[in-house]
């Protein structure tokens, strides 16, 4: 098994095919989308491939150490141009092929007009913490 991070972006990903902001969808389209997302996580729990998912608010800032005795330096809120992560799902699957298959399914969540959003998701393999026992 190998873990993959499926990353969703507020900004910075290539534009999705069905690119309409959610508040402009009809109430029925909003419901269909939310149901699809809930079912997706439940389904992966059922197949034993779900690890975690979290969403992030769009707010935030950069922070760095600024020297002895000084408070940390902050920069933010983020500029409108910055690549901005919206949230993630972590899955534990048998192959990269399966990770791509699931990311594709997540990207097919219905949006405006009830049609798939075709949203670009970033798929990132985890760097394992330990080496295999067999050499």
């Amino acid at each position: 098994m190998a873990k993959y991070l499926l990353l969703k972006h507020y900004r910075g990903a290539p534009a999705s095919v069905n690119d309409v902001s959610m508040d402009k969808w009809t109430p029925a389209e909003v419901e269909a989308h939310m149901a699809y997302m809930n079912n997706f996580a439940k389904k992966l729990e059922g197949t034993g491939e779900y690890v975690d998912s979290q969403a992030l608010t769009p707010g935030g800032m950069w922070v760095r150490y600024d020297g002895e005795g000084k408070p940390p330096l902050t920069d933010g809120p983020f500029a409108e141009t910055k690549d901005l992560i919206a949230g993630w799902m972590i899955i534990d699957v048998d192959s990269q092929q399966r990770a791509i298959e699931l990311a594709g399914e997540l990207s097919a969540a219905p949006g405006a007009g009830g049609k798939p959003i075709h949203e670009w998701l970033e798929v990132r393999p985890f760097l394992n913490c330990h080496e295999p026992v067999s050499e």
Partner: protein
Amino acid sequence: MTEPAGLLRELSPVVLSVLVRRGADFATAEDAVQEALIKALTAWAEQPPRSPKAWLVTTAWRAFLDLSRSEGARRAREERYEAEGHAPAEEVDDTLRMYVLCAHPSLTPSSAVALTLRAMGGLTTRQIAEAYLVPEATMAQRISRAKRTISGVRLNQPGDLGTVLHTLYLVFNEGYSGEVDLAAEAIRLTRQLSSLVDQPEVRGLLALMLLHHARRPARRGADGRLIPLADQNRDLWDRDLIAQGVNILQAALARDRLGPYQAQAAIAALHADAPRVEETDWLQIVEWYDELAAFGDNPVFRLNRAVAVGQADGAGLAALARVDPSTPRWTAVAAHLHEGNGELRLAAELYARAAREAPNLPEREHLTRQASRINALLRQG
């Protein structure tokens, strides 16, 4: 929860206070009580004790002696205990002191919450960790650090009941995830506290919790969606809990020592009292918000007051203008008030912005639905 487990957790703070009275240090005594609770679960299943409390005190005391190991210290402590004697009336004061200690101002709120749930609630570290969605090792560290922090606090220092109430309120607001229902646990502990100390604000907090808890069955839809107060099916509200809450509140208010928890409970009671949202007594609710303001300026209360003013006399936007726009949920309230004013386009924009600013997913989804609903109205119109 099974009957013995409930009884065990009820007795947990009492047993702890007995051990501390006998001279045990708080940190070791707390570990000893946890051991006794775990032993009781198996032992009582085979043979229930005649006196559960005596059984627990004996077992916890033995565990404490094992844990502290030092024979000399043990003898000294036993001699001191023999000399002091003990009485049930003091036990009440001692248990109260344990509550105050677990919520001591030197602890961070998250530490006070964790320690209160373990020492007073008798929950295991694993259960607390699960309820707060952190690893068990993290929660174990949080608890042992909290115990170290308060180890220097003298038990006979007059405590601050305010921090205890605040801690219990924090637990209540966490709701429930996993096997432990933190809201129900907070109510149980506040009830116990209210039996230990006769204070209107303790009753006020208990009433507030009961009145909010009564609405829980109506607060989520079948698919888990958030349902705001105005749209809730009031038949689902728990009438017994409401009656309990109202009775406790009325008795507290009659003593004429108003505090912020009683005032908040009064507002919750007025909502509970309306058979339909249209029958809500908004004027009285605004008056209670004005009473609340006397206990300190709180932007969240002023924001809620603006909503009530909007319902009472339509001047909600004027009231909102006097609240700092960086207050959490300000944009959502602005959207709601502009919608009431018939400014749909502005309301839709504000709902969409409020969704982006929402602090949690259920609220984000609710606000997105509101934006979508109003945009649909605009397309029709």
